[in-house]
């Protein structure tokens, strides 16, 4: 298998590329050049490392989930990204992109957000460096992730509701692209996933790969060997690629991405382009697998987890799947809620619903691997933002 790096036009095999309106093409070239030059400077890297250590709280621990492992019947390790500042892996990327944008002379940051984790991470770093921040969020997601909306506003960001289309993550991305094309000179668009046109899939991966680099060392220290599998949830796929990437050369380690199975793949009500075998398409500047109808219209997706509610997937995941290097499966909403419960009750950890998808699959995988199996799960975020959703699913009104 060739190295997992994009080629000159920014493609991973048949996936990726730069499929955007002409107005944005030069800005993307400029960003790719800046990332190549500034991103390699020692001073930039030192500043990033310093912020990751003292502000984000890296390295995050790798935690042995003993009681969960006992219940599921194998060794389970959690990479605790939920303990990062702002409660998810997303900040690794926003710290990097905003430092880069500042050096590029940009005066304004825009972002899209689904669950609100990337929006909060962006608003946080913008507050930290003192730069204007506008976050686009689907109005449906605003309703189901209210605590994160308020957090962004407390941090001084402007949250703009997006009422078009399905009013979720994909529509927030469209609206952010519209803002960017209008304000391209002053503004940096901080995409929150390993999605979008080149250089985002590569750049966002590189910023998140710190998760996998730490984890690869940590697991070898405690186990004295490689794990059997690394499992992570996949919407656009940033936390998954972040933990997978350093393990790609370790062929004996299975890399498993867990997509949002919603009501089940067969129901059609899901957000699992890879597990659901969606055809290849072009969306949001990239060529990748996209859930769409026979006419090429993008389909509405369905997931309890706003952060996974996205009809496409980062191009490197599409490529890793086709290369056979990573596997992609789905966990349904109900499997996810059961796993959420398990982690709360057995480990005292309230996970994000997104991350709970990875836990749900680990339960199935444990049965396959047996008692000697060792699974690393990227616990990509914490679940405070999801309490309302989980209570509603259980028929409980937490307001009264």
């Amino acid at each position, binding site marked *: 298998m060739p190295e997992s790096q994009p080629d000159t*036009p920014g493609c991973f095999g048949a996936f990726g*590329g*730069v*499929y*955007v*309106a*002409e*107005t*944005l*093409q*030069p*800005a993307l070239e400029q960003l790719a050049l800046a990332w190549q030059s500034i991103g390699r400077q020692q001073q930039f890297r030192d500043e990033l490392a310093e912020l990751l250590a003292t502000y984000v709280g890296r390295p995050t621990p790798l935690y042995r989930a003993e009681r969960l492992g006992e219940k599921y019947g194998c060794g389970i390790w959690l990479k605790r990204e939920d303990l990062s500042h702002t409660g998810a892996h997303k900040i690794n990327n926003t710290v990097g992109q905003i430092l880069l944008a500042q050096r590029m002379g940009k005066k304004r940051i825009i972002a899209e957000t689904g669950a609100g984790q990337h929006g909060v991470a962006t608003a946080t770093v913008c507050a930290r460096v003192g730069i204007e921040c506008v976050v686009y969020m689907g109005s449906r997601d605003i309703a189901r992730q209210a605590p994160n909306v308020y957090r962004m506003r407390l941090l001084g960001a402007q949250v703009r509701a997006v009422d*078009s*289309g399905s009013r979720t993550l*994909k*529509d927030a*991305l*469209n609206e952010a*692209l*519209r803002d960017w*094309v*209008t*304000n*391209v*000179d002053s503004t940096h668009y901080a995409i929150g996933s390993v999605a979008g046109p080149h250089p985002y899939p590569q750049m966002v991966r590189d910023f998140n790969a710190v998760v996998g680099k730490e984890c690869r060392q940590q697991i070898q220290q405690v186990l004295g060997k490689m794990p059997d599998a690394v499992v992570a949830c996949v919407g656009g796929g940033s936390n998954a690629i972040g933990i997978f990437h350093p393990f790609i050369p370790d062929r004996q380690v299975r890399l498993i991405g867990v997509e949002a199975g919603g009501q089940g793949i067969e129901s059609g009500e899901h957000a699992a382009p890879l597990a659901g075998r969606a*055809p*290849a*398409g*072009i*969306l*949001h*500047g990239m060529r990748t697998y*996209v859930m*769409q109808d*026979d*006419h*090429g*219209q*993008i389909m509405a997706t369905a997931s309890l987890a706003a952060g996974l509610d996205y009809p496409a997937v980062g191009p490197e995941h599409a490529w890793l799947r086709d290369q056979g290097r990573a596997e992609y499966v789905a966990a349904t909403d109900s499997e996810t809620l059961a796993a959420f419960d398990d982690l709360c009750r057995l480990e005292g950890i309230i996970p994000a619903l997104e991350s709970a998808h990875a836990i749900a699959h680990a339960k199935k995988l444990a049965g396959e691997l047996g008692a000697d199996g060792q699974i690393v799960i990227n616990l990509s975020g914490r679940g405070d933002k999801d309490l309302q959703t989980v209570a509603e699913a259980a028929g409980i009104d937490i307001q009264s």
Partner: protein
Amino acid sequence: MSALATTFAQGTGRTLLVPYMTVGFPQADSTVALMDALEDAGADIIELGVPFSDPAADGPVIQRANDQALANRASLTSALAAAASYRDGGGKLPVVLMGYANPFLRFGPARLARECNQAGVSGVLAVDWPAGDPDELGAATGEEGVDRISLIAPTTPEERIASIAAKSSGYLYYVSIKGVTGTGKASHSEALAAAAKIRKQTGLPIAIGFGISTPQDCAALAAGFDAVVVGSCLVAAAAAAGSTSAAASAIGKIVSEMKAALQ
């Protein structure tokens, strides 16, 4: 010579008027009647918008038209059918399909080019599918003699203009504003300067679109451009009309006023 090239050649010395209309809008069966109205009002080329669920380069007016068209079950297939039926009914103007990459890709570039040819569609403009290297869409359209129209933006550097022009045919479409359709107002002086800059790199005709909504805009830009594309103001007028015939007369009136301003 392609139909578009012939139209520009015959129109030498004047600026052509290119109205845009979303297919399957406002009603599912409106399109052919609206195309006839555009021709009667003096249009030179018709851009048919292929609806897409995620039109990231469009402002609110065309976004809503896309949503309505999709609710009316419009698609690339119905755009090709409308073009063919316009042609069968004696329609004479060249037709260009303007849309987003995914419906074109899903349909298949080779099949698209072939069916454009059969339906009498002269060119294809895919907003988010730049002519790369290799150019899958351009190879297919070239095979069938269908023009592949590309966008040039205010941000496009000069050296890139030449390479885009080399992979394009029919005309180049200059996007007059940094922004989405129907939201800004083109600066006439900047646009005319851009036209001069583009002409140094290519002999292709140059159209201007985005941010053009009045006969005054058309008259002011005629000096620098071979064609003026008008979209959102027509779509808004069609949206406000209660029926296909009301929409036809509303857009016909706007187009004939613009046509007069260009003469």
